[in-house]
């Protein structure tokens, strides 16, 4: 049964190489999927809190388009879609389609397929996205000690590095620019201080917020998984600085 793929509008426009990496990773792991280009924006709560009705109706249309299980590459879309589907399901009593974040699907497939992957030794600081961890009612990962992304990285042959500000917020959806930038700067600095080569995020807004202020490259988990499954690093969007470090390792 093929999954519906919904990479999210930020990835489709600002980070197309992440979309490429997601598709490559899924196909290399034998996951059949259909991209649903017809689906509209997931109306995330941070700007669609202006009108709850619009958020529900837009996602009602998306629900009709997806029909079966959906995999999303951005945790913000994951949260908005699954919350909307739950409210809609309870309103009209229909079973909501399951919404799976990319990292959860990746963990499952890696555990099943168990591919033999080389150890790259790349030290990665994980940027845990708040939408994926909280509210803890989602029951996907332990908000105080998240492990899913870290175990995926280990399976892919990378070295997850923990750092002091690991559970802090990246400042993602803030409208006041300088507060957001300050929070991102503190976080990126802490990751760099812990000796990480790159920051791995699973939500497009974390990437938008961290990339401009971080001295070390900010990548999506899919880019790393595509690379370790054999995709050419340039196509996966690896910056040269990172390539030089990996050669050094």
């Amino acid at each position, binding site marked *: 049964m093929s999954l519906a793929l919904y990479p999210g509008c930020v990835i489709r426009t600002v980070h197309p190489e992440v979309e490429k990496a997601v598709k490559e990773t899924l196909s290399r792991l034998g996951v059949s999927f259909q991209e649903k280009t*017809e689906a509209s924006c997931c109306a995330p709560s941070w700007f669609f809190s202006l009108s709850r009705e619009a958020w529900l109706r837009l996602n009602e249309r998306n629900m009709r388009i997806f029909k079966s299980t959906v995999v999303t590459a951005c945790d913000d879309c994951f949260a908005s879609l699954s919350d909307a589907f739950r409210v809609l399901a309870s309103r009209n009593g229909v079973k909501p389609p399951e919404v799976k974040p990319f990292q959860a699907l990746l963990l499952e497939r890696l555990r099943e397929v168990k591919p033999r992957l080389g150890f790259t030794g790349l030290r990665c600081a994980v940027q845990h996205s708040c939408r994926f961890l909280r509210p803890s009612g989602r029951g996907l990962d332990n908000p105080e000690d998240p492990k899913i992304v870290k175990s995926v990285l280990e399976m892919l042959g990378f070295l997850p590095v923990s750092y002091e500000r690991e559970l802090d917020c990246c400042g993602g959806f803030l409208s006041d620019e300088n507060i957001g930038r*300050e929070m991102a700067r503190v976080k990126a600095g802490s990751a760099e201080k812990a000796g990480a080569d790159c920051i791995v995020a699973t939500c497009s807004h974390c990437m938008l917020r961290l990339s401009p202020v971080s001295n070390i490259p900010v990548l999506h988990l899919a880019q790393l998984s595509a690379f370790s499954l054999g995709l050419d690093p340039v196509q996966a969007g690896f910056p040269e600085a990172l390539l030089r470090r990996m050669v050094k390792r």
Partner: protein
Amino acid sequence: MIEKLREKGAGNPFKCVQCGSCTSACPVNLIQEGFNPRRIVGSLARFNRIPDQDPWLCSTCSLCSERCPQGVDPLSIILVLRAVLYENGGTAPAGVLKMVEQVKETGLAFSPTLESRERRRLLGLPEAGLSTEGLREVRRILSEAGFK
């Protein structure tokens, strides 16, 4: 006042015991003392008054709702306050309104640009964007929901 907020899905401010857990967990408060979720819930519960703080300063990371021992869910209260202020003629930040405009225009919050189309072509990815029929449907939904 509180009932109106509760109907829109806000948490119950009366359950708050003013313990300060939410404010100490709030990343924005770390940088700007002025933004204080405890005071937002407090001014609603005790003085039944819309707080004078700007709800748009919240980064919606929901750490406050996670740490609250009484299950007040301050994040939902802040989100509903945003909608209430916007409806009563308050302004939403420019960035947010721009996003809404783009959704109306292309059905996506981040509409494709020339440069991004070019990069997609290089990577062999199909065109991003909705069909015209899909777009019309999105616009109808938005205008019905009050986004002029």
